[in-house]
């Protein structure tokens, strides 16, 4: 979960990382109650990068200009994203700018401290400027000092900049982050340090164990009324908006392999759902059977999806149970509301004990049950080609 700049800076402030006086602007009217003296910087609060180049950051010197600029930014989409909030912030004259980050690295299987004495937009792409320190054992402040020395800083700057890295690391650990980044860290002519822009990514799995972050996530997603597990962002994978095939399988690797096969055979996949393998150890999440039903419902709601290929291997449910779930969904979707009595068409691929236990049920359901994966893929693509995608 990516935080917006203003949220990241609130955490920075709580952690003791210096940030400028700033104010959140939810609507134009908020600019009238501004407590920060002009000139100020107005910043679009979107999650995508390249905000400055896109015109999402403006310096203004009075209220009239501020209102005009805010109106523009509120309506300016940046990579399809329209900001809900702006940040009004004091202007800062930085003499030098550094880049600092803590990131979880899957190659070393450790958090890594990153830094560059040249902060700015393109630091991440210029690898040769970016210094790294792997936090091999438990963190201690000397890891931060190592980074600072590698960045080429000297003398009185060493301690305060490494103090900021230390605080970033504490935040990283405390909040279960994938990334915390300050870019740039401004250094004034007098040596004062200031986090001018910040990025924070919370690891999705850890959200539920942090009460404060769970509340933020709920607000962000605004999903109070969300009933279907797959309506939650990140539980369904959109492949190609113009596709007409849905894939549902148990296991990420199996779903990806099925996607590759269907695509290679000329099919166009719109959405993939991974309902996960095995039984669920967390009672707060839906069971395997529930995920199967909710997944089929989710795909059936998309009128562009003509064919769904279900690929289930070695599940904890007996094939009979799977067949029952499918017939339930199939019945729901053959109510008068849908034009087609069985929309979308379902093709099921089972192997092993599921296949043997389910054969009778499926023949009654008129859903094709195929053991060979290549064969199931071939039929899926054939069916999809004979049912042209609808215009929405």
């Amino acid at each position: 979960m990516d935080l917006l700049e203003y949220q990241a800076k609130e955490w920075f402030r709580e952690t003791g990382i210096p940030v400028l006086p700033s104010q959140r602007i939810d609507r134009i009217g908020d600019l009238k109650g501004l407590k920060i003296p002009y000139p100020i910087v107005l910043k679009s609060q979107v999650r995508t990068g390249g905000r400055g180049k896109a015109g999402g950051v403006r310096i203004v010197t009075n209220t009239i200009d501020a209102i005009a600029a805010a109106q523009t930014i509120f309506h300016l989409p940046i990579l399809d994203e329209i900001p809900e909030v702006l940040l009004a912030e004091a202007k800062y004259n930085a003499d030098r700018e550094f880049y600092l980050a803590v990131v979880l690295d899957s190659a070393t299987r450790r958090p890594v401290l990153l830094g560059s004495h040249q902060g700015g937009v393109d630091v991440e792409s210029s690898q040769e400027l970016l210094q790294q320190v792997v936090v091999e054992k438990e963190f201690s402040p000397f890891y931060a000092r190592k980074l600072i020395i590698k960045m080429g800083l000297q003398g009185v700057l060493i301690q305060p900049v490494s103090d900021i890295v230390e605080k970033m690391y504490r935040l990283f650990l405390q909040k279960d982050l994938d990334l915390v980044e300050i870019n740039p860290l401004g250094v004034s002519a007098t040596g004062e340090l200031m986090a001018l822009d910040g990025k924070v990514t919370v690891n999705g799995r850890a959200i539920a164990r942090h009460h404060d972050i769970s509340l933020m996530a709920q607000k962000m997603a605004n999903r109070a009324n969300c009933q279907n597990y797959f309506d939650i962002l990140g539980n369904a994978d959109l492949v190609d908006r113009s596709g007409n095939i849905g894939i549902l399988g148990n296991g990420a690797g199996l779903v990806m392999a099925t996607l590759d096969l269907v695509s290679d055979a000329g099919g166009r996949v719109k959405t993939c759902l991974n309902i996960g393998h095995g039984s669920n150890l967390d009672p707060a999440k839906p069971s395997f059977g529930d995920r199967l039903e909710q997944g089929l419902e989710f795909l059936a709601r998309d009128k562009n999806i003509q064919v769904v290929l279900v690929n289930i291997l070695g599940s904890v449910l007996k094939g009979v149970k799977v067949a029952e779930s499918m017939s339930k969904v199939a019945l729901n979707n053959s109510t008068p509301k849908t034009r087609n009595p069985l929309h979308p068409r379902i093709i099921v691929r089972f192997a092993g004990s599921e296949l043997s236990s389910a054969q009778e049920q499926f023949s009654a359901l008129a859903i094709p049950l195929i053991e060979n994966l290549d064969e199931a893929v071939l039929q899926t693509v054939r069916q999809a080609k004979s049912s042209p995608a609808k215009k929405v």
Partner: protein
Amino acid sequence: MNLQPDSKILFQGITAELCATHGVQMKDYGTNLVAGVNPGLGGQTFEDIPVFDLVEQALAAVGAIDTTLIFVSAYQVLDAALEAIAAGIRQIIIVSSGMPPLDMVHLLRKAEATETIIIGPNSPGIIVPGKLLLGTHRREFYTPGGIGIVSRSSTLTYEIALELTKAGLGQSMAVSIGGDAIAGSSFLQWLQIFDEDETTNAIVLVGELGGNSEEAAAQYIAAAIDKPVIAYIAGRKAPAGRHWGHTGTLAAVVGRGGDVGTAQSKLAAFKSAGIPVAEKPSQISELVKKALKVK
């Protein structure tokens, strides 16, 4: 790694339900499941398996344990694994999924300091067909033989095993290192184990997009593995940047170029290392047969 059929196995997070499915499956396969641990359930018995409140109580009752299987819920995994390490257990298979990656970082530091092997998290474990089942692999797809499978997936591993079995190629062992960004064991470790294992004639490596472990494996195979290796990579057609239920792409790969982690980068790595890559699961068996003939 000790994978003897009679090695003693502990089941952490045992419940009546889990025991009825996975416990029974393992016992039927001959796995020597000697005890279970679940705080609060101590004193009960599921399927003849005695349950204890603490790992050390289980050890006091049944003696030293070779491998523990962890099935506890995601946020309890770290503690369960640390309890096992503190009790002297040095082989840990984490079946549970959803473990926060920083918990895994913490666990790896302890595991390295104590020379403990961690498989998983989010792994179906290890199967030695016909001999030993440590985890949730479905036996119906496997048959004894000479092919080693190492994978990051669970059900995709069954798919590969099924294709090999259908083609008359039995398996010496199949292991999944788990689909998480931070995994306890690596392709490299298992490639080495298979290379030294006398019952293994050829190795099938099943990768997927995300992370850089396939790239590292390709280099390692070219440099150090004598037995034939066939690779298969899932996710060639998947859009970049999505996690597909695995978090292999969530954690950054630092300083190794922007392209690392895509299926294309992995395919290129195997190609340049001269390792045959199957286009689809059903093609693997013919590549294996071809490679075995050449050698």
